[in-house]
């Protein structure tokens, strides 16, 4: 693991009207790291991801990606920089096949425009095949072969989650935002996904920022953890440090006087 900073959030504050959602949150994610963001419901975890994606504009503070301030960069351009995302509620293109869902993610890496596409034979065809190879690699990696040509809308929930992981991966991300990748899964599916996440980090060297509620998994696989509570960062450190932090225990289990 290199010691370079991949993503830096500096004093981020965000409020919706009177509701203060994030207060002076600073986070640094290092290159190649698996960084987990935890906290009770409504702590502002997804808000942070939305700020990084550019859906929300923080009231104060700056976001740096690979040393560049991306605060003013449009959401779709952030994808071109290499920021990819898996959503909490599956957000796939339901009318397309699994294969096409993954091919869409190659959009930013492809170049041919409407005219080449309409003519098809020649450049657009060659480009499609070139990217198809990469996508097939990902299909192989996530074991999606049998459903390659199924419409996404027809797939069961667990499979859709996996397809979404594949789509995020097809963008060739340098930073992957995972919003509750394990939500609503059974144990077996969770173990599969955990294995995929670790493989992505280790084999593909992707920096990962993950929001997750499954403490067992978070403690097992993440390198560092930040804990949010009501928009404030209350702790940061390795799994060992965080799990013994008093404030964290208080936030999760409630304050017990003298306990």
């Amino acid at each position: 693991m290199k010691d370079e900073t991949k993503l830096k959030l500096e004093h981020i504050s965000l409020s919706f009207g009177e509701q203060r959602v994030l207060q002076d949150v600073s986070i640094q994610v290092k290159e190649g790291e698996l960084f987990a963001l935890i906290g009770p419901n409504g702590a502002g975890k997804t808000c942070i991801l939305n700020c990084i994606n550019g859906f929300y504009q923080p009231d104060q503070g700056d976001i740096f990606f690979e040393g560049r301030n991306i605060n003013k960069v449009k959401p779709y351009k952030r994808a071109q920089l290499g920021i990819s995302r898996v959503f909490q509620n599956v957000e796939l293109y339901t009318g397309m096949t699994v294969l096409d869902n993954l091919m869409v993610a190659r959009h930013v890496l492809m170049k041919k425009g409407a005219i080449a596409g309409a003519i098809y034979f020649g450049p657009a065809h060659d480009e499609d095949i070139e990217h198809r190879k990469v996508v097939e690699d990902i299909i192989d990696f996530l074991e999606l072969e049998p459903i390659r040509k199924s419409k996404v809308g027809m797939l069961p929930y667990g499979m859709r989650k996996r397809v979404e992981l594949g789509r995020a991966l097809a963008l060739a991300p340098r930073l992957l935002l995972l919003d509750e990748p394990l939500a609503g899964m059974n144990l077996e599916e969770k173990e599969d996904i955990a294995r995929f996440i670790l493989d992505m980090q280790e084999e593909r060297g992707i920096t990962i920022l993950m929001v997750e509620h499954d403490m067992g998994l978070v403690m097992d696989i993440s390198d560092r953890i930040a804990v949010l509570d009501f928009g404030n960062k209350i702790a940061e450190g390795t799994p060992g440090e965080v799990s013994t932090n008093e404030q964290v225990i208080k936030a999760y289990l409630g304050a017990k006087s003298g306990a």
Partner: protein
Amino acid sequence: MDRPCGVLCNSYAKDMAIVSTRLQWGLLVGGLILLFCSPLFINLQLLSIINLMAITLIAIQGLNILTGYTGQISLGQAAFMAVGGYTSSILATRFGLSFWVTLPCGALSAGLVGVLFGLPSLRVKGFYLAMSTLAAQFIIYWVLMHTPQLGAGPDAVQVSAPELGGLKLTSQQNMFYVIMPLAVLATFLTKNLVRTRVGRAFIATRDNDLAAEVMGINVFSYKLLAFFICSLFAGAAGALYGAWARALRPDYFTLMQSIMYLGMLVVGGIGSTAGAVFGTIFMVGLDQLVTALAPALISIAPQLGLGVTASISKIVFGLVMVLFLRFEPRGLAHRWELFKASYRLWPFAY
């Protein structure tokens, strides 16, 4: 693409090909030859209907890209056709340009007007966008009716026939060879567009614009591009219509016509290139059939009165729409897919 049993692909190119087996190639080439020889042996009346179908098909394929694939409902397709038609005819009469120049100019001008009326798609979606394209329909129609410099108001303007090498293309047969290649080309381009990068971006925008944005698609500019291509096709169809009918009247480009176009798409199967073909053939054919049968209806049932018989085609259109929405909302294209699937397996159940 589903393959017939036993046809295995050993390259991605083969897997992506639409026409792969020898039988399919044979049917395609044979079908095209038959199509382009058809003026030799079918009568004029039928040929003129086929020409109208082919012109309509170009507009429908455009609308399919915008509404079927990009998910932006447009109620202004007929108006964009009018822009193309009138631009083309004005360029021809005022500047004496040949049809082969005015056709692309008409298409292009309609495309630009389409982009203009596509701008609200930055802010509004769904039904609200449909309302803003409705504005396009009414504004363009109003301008045509009230600007005598453009045409002749509500009256028809004459359009001269296209010329090719000194030969005036006036007959239905001549026009067939102008219109049909363009209709085939429009279908070919549409099909290819929607299965490559830009088309996938369109479908992603339709299915989930939020995710599309996060995945690096500039949703707004792709919506505008869809509006441009849609109106470009409409403009070309309008210019062809003028050259074919040899006259243009604002009354051909009404809201009713725009709704008919959407109806054709629904009947054929929204978001399917083959569906657009089926829908156009079915609805234009039905419309012509009903219009032709109206006099017979009067003689059988005179008590219906002139009102019913005059608007019989609209009544039938409404009925067909209701029946399709109730029994086959995925359109004829879906039936075609089902037929192909069962044909592949026949005589086995699965």
